[in-house]
């Protein structure tokens, strides 16, 4: 026994007990609050969802980039399809759910709820704008205007269009936004018009082709331009020759490559949307 320390006394044990139990109670309360905050669902939607996307063929990206179904209006302007908004009872509350059957799969807005896109105002059912695709400035492609709605006529030369990458005529790409007017963040999309896609739909069959028939029109396809790896906006279709990416979609951050003509079904866990977005 060292005599440096005071004798153990009843009073001392009492003080130790009080301090110790207070500390334990504090830690317990804090961890319960933390677990509560982490596990409490604070938004709408989210969870496991199955989607069609463009296959990741090289690089570190974990899965395909989801497609956005599109259609053309009577005047020839391109617009994306937002799933039908329904009211649903969930856990005693009425919530808005954006979900519909399309091309043999349940198309829901959860497909795009990753990489922070789940917080964009444009993804909310309450977004008060239209669904038209609009060009953006600063694009990889010289040909496209920097603003305005996308029109079918802009892609007339899609069977012969060429740039420095890939073979001529495999498709004409553009970059733009969807549901992003007067919002803080733009939802980036990639539009491609290609005869390869038209031929694929005409010649092949299968569930991916069923989906393509419903989600594409006149050889047009739209992809949410958000890399599934670390959330970059890829430089796009025919934007680099690195690693055979000349005829594919290339992400400049970590050299992920997606093949827009290989449509695959994938599953991932989507983030919930914040409810008061």
């Amino acid at each position, binding site marked *: 026994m060292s005599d440096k320390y005071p004798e153990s006394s009843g009073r001392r044990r009492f003080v130790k007990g009080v301090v110790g139990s207070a500390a334990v109670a504090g830690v317990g309360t804090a961890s319960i609050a933390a677990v509560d905050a982490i596990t409490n669902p604070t938004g709408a939607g989210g969870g496991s969802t199955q989607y069609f996307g463009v296959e990741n063929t090289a690089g*570190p990206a974990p899965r395909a980039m989801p497609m956005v179904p599109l259609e053309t209006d009577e005047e020839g302007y391109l617009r994306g399809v937002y799933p039908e908004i329904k009211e649903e009872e969930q856990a005693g509350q009425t919530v808005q759910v954006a979900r519909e059957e399309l091309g043999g799969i349940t198309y829901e807005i959860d497909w795009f709820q990753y990489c*922070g896109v789940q917080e964009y105002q444009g993804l909310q059912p309450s977004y008060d704008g239209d669904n038209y695709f609009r060009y953006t400035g600063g694009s*990889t492609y010289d040909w496209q205007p920097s603003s305005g709605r996308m029109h079918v006529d802009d892609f007339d030369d899609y069977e012969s269009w060429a740039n420095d990458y890939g073979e001529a005529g495999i498709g004409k790409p553009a970059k733009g936004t969807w549901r*992003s007017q007067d919002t803080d963040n*733009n939802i*980036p999309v990639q539009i491609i018009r290609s005869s390869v896609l038209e031929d694929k739909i005409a010649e092949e069959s299968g569930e991916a082709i069923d989906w393509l028939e419903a989600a594409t029109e006149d050889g047009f396809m739209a992809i949410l331009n958000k890399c599934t790896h670390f*959330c*970059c906006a890829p*430089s796009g279709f025919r934007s*680099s020759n690195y690693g055979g990416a000349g005829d594919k979609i290339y992400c400049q951050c970590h050299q992920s490559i997606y093949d827009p003509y290989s449509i695959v079904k994938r599953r991932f866990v989507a983030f919930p949307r914040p409810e008061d977005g």
Partner: protein
Amino acid sequence: MTDDNSDDTARTDGTGIVPPDDETPTWRERKERTTGLSRLTYEYFERSRREDQDLREESDYVERDVLAFPVWPHELIRNLALTSFFVGMIFFLSATLPPHLGAPANPSQTPAVILPDWYLYWSFGLLKLGPLNPDLAIIGGDKLLADRTYGVLANVVVVGFIAIVPFLNKGSARRPVEQPFWAAIGVMGVVFAVFISALSIKNLVPMDPHLLFDLTFLVPPLAGGMAYAILKTMREGYMYDLNRRYYKLRPPK
């Protein structure tokens, strides 16, 4: 120092070796009876040891009147002056050079070239070691670790190795020729850093990425081996010159 032992005041000029016959040989005599490098080296070390001993013996550390300066005012005044100078420089620079505050990052648009700062390329390159991550047959051809986990662990290995080098090599060598092996390890590390940095920007390097990947792991050991061979060859001549020069400059009396 006290006065009573002034006759024995240690000499620090390295001339404390006393030959048995009380006659220090001249430089010429010494040179005539030399037996080459081994003799020279022995004398060199003997002189050094003697000098050290003399210095230790005459140390006046304990007897000094002034051990240090007081914190106040000497140290604090000096420190305040230095602090004021650097704070003033910060104010001056921030006033003269307007800060660059770019627009906030736009998550919907990524620049065409996006890279970490150049001095982190080596670490960025270590994240791209996916091809070294083996597909293990025992778990059905899957990888035990995801490529990204593997890359982070590679960083831990490299930083860990650099951290333990001082514990592995406790030599007092100050020139590469004195320790060819560790010098070669150093050369290997530097060359590896250069190549792994190039690998991290493989999409911008005008070279086949697979070739670059192979070179990253083949060139550094090669460079290390060459450095070892060269240093080992140089060593004897170099040390001989070093000893001789030291000896010549300060010949014994």
